[in-house]
């Protein structure tokens, strides 16, 4: 019985990878190239590496309070009221992030696959499917993540394969020629592509081997950096910077660039999107799960599964607020960026410092 309640570190790593990689991967090459031209790969690496210290901090917090979960630690360090405010901020973050992902998902699917299906239908469908996953326990999420991880690797491999014949690697040149004053803003941009890694800290207390978990988390982040880099390199060598600056979602546009022999096998976006839908599903599910778990701990309800259904309408309403895709990125994205900054950097740092101070004091 005990064994069934835990998940392995490998599953946690996969959960991290599949949660972080979602809709961000589609627009990332465009965002990086727009700011830093050919050197967009630098912020992708630096942004990813920047997340690692905060992951280490959260790991230290857990090590300071073994056998406790994040809510218990938080309450002990900051008291119930203050920590609940933190939690509400994080809850809002997860909800908005969910809405954002669902909306971009709908925009992409509508543009490429289901031209006449209303956006609302696409959003509701993906949210309901994700809710089914989110209502399960953490072990199920871990298993789904492991499954989706294979699909994700297939997707990236497929993209590399179809872009090889027409790729021109010299498009990567010149390197180190951009305006490096823009590097900080590029790094912040890239950092947001790593949002979602916080989900592992909700899974942390279910790990079966807590001593080695940090190693797996860092490995997971490195895999994410690797996948982002691969996607950046293939899009850039296929399109060149001017065309990437124009493309809204260069990663999917790769599928439009393929010459296949024969006549009726032309719609490769179908294959790419089919794989990508699963990847988005494994982003939405864990986010929804995390949101409902936090909700459960703030209001101390018994189980989290009915909360998921409660959150769905809220997420749906937020996701249909922006009028068009520009507003999704410019308005909803902007709001979300503040929450991401707080959630990726702020909360881990505050929790770490608080926990450290508290421990020192209690020793003295």
């Amino acid at each position, binding site marked *: 019985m005990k064994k069934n309640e835990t998940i392995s570190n490998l599953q946690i790593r996969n959960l991290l990878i599949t949660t972080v990689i979602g809709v961000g991967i589609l627009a990332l090459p465009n965002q990086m190239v727009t700011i830093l031209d050919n050197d967009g790969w630098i912020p992708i690496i630096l942004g990813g590496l920047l997340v690692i210290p905060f992951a280490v901090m959260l790991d230290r917090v857990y090590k300071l309070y073994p056998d406790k979960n994040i809510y218990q630690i938080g309450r002990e360090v900051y008291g119930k009221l203050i920590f609940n405010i933190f939690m509400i901020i994080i809850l809002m973050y997860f909800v908005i992030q969910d809405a954002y992902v669902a909306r971009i998902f709908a925009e992409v699917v509508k543009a490429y696959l289901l031209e006449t299906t209303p956006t609302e239908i696409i959003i509701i469908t993906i949210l309901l499917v994700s809710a089914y996953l989110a209502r399960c326990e953490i072990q199920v999420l871990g298993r789904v993540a492991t499954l989706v991880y294979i699909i994700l690797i297939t997707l990236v491999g497929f993209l590399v394969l179809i872009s090889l014949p027409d790729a021109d690697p010299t498009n990567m040149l010149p390197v180190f020629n951009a305006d490096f004053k823009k590097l900080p803003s590029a790094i912040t941009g890239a950092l947001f592509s790593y949002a979602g890694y916080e989900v592992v800290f909700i899974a942390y207390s279910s790990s079966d081997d807590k001593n080695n978990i940090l190693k797996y988390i860092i490995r997971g982040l490195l895999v994410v950096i690797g996948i982002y880099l691969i996607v950046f390199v293939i899009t850039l060598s296929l399109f*060149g910077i001017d065309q990437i600056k124009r493309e809204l979602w260069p990663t999917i546009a790769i599928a439009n660039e393929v010459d296949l022999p024969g006549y009726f096998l032309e719609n490769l976006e179908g294959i790419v999107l089919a794989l990508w839908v699963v990847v988005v599903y494994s982003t939405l599910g864990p986010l929804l799960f995390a949101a409902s778990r936090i909700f459960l701990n703030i209001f101390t309800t018994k189980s989290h599964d009915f909360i998921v259904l409660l959150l769905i309408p809220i997420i749906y309403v937020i996701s249909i607020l922006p009028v068009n895709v520009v507003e999704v990125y410019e308005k909803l994205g902007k709001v979300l960026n503040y929450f991401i900054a707080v959630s990726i950097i702020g909360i881990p740092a505050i929790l770490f410092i608080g926990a450290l101070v508290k421990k020192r004091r209690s020793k003295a």
Partner: protein
Amino acid sequence: MKKLLVLLLISSLMLTSGCWDSREIEQRLFVTAIAVDINEEVQEGNVNRLIVTYKYPNINTIGKNSDGGHINFTLSVPASGISQASTAFMGEAPFPFYFKHLKVIIFSKELLEHEELVRHILDELNRSPQINKRARIAVTEGKARDVLKVTAGQEYRTEGGIYQVLRSNKFTNRFTVKSLTDLITDFDVAGVTIVPRISIVSGKFVVSGGCILKNYKFLAWVDQNHNRAINIMNGIIGLENIDTIYNGTLLSYAVTRGYSRKKVTFDDGITVRFDIKLQGYLQGYNISQKNQVYDEKTLEDIENNIEEELEKKILETRKFLDEIGAPLFGVGEHMSKFHPKVWKQVKDNWQEMMPEVKFQLNIDVNIRRTGLTK
């Protein structure tokens, strides 16, 4: 009670179609080629400045139950844009159009005189998630719609003869294959590009030579010899014949493969060294007892002869391109990638500088095989 509910839910599945708006494959018209012309009869203030022509296969003639009618249909309509035409066609076409199998886009020369129209069309094509971005581009001197009408009866396969010809430079070097993405990228990088020329000769289409476009506008036609030189300089080397006069008689050399590399130095002005290496075989010379090629010295001599001939042609082409102001040898792109600092200084008046750039041609022709006879 629970079982009843499940049963009810399952049986309700039978009533749902499974698709939001299902559409059968035969209820779609797959556009394979589009021709864009200028609308000459347009009135002042009318936005329908184009005549757009679609070509689509008759699906009923495919397969065993073919009814033997027309293989392809063409439809023309005055329109403001390429997709806008499809709504204008709805009066005559039975089903909606579908663009994912678009293979060929043909522009008329007249259209390319209007920069703003070209920019609009390219943006529309690039923006649409429907359009296959690898569709091949070609330009014709006359009416683009005539090319599609000519080919409609000529083709026996739905893929389309024009597409098969325009597909790759693997078997010929007489034109430069250009896809929609290539075209847009070329305009981004160099502002100048070359597109295959398609013309109608005695009721059939012929692709040969190219059309140089500059800043989204027509600049000049080039014949197939110039086009071949441009291709070789850019490293686009497919199967190709080079004819030269050796010892007073015609000699043909067939190129099977090769490459071209650039190196730019800045010691004394800008010097570009092109390393061009061609491999191939001797295809034909002169049958007689004394004109044998079977010794090293003669072969070397022939190689030198071909090299000289090629160099002459390339320099001719360069002079022509400098005169019309079309830097098509990819030197600018090379410099922007490998010498970004110098490129920053020169890119604004690159075109005026182009004639002063020194070319150092390092051509190496290899005869690897001489055929079955000595």
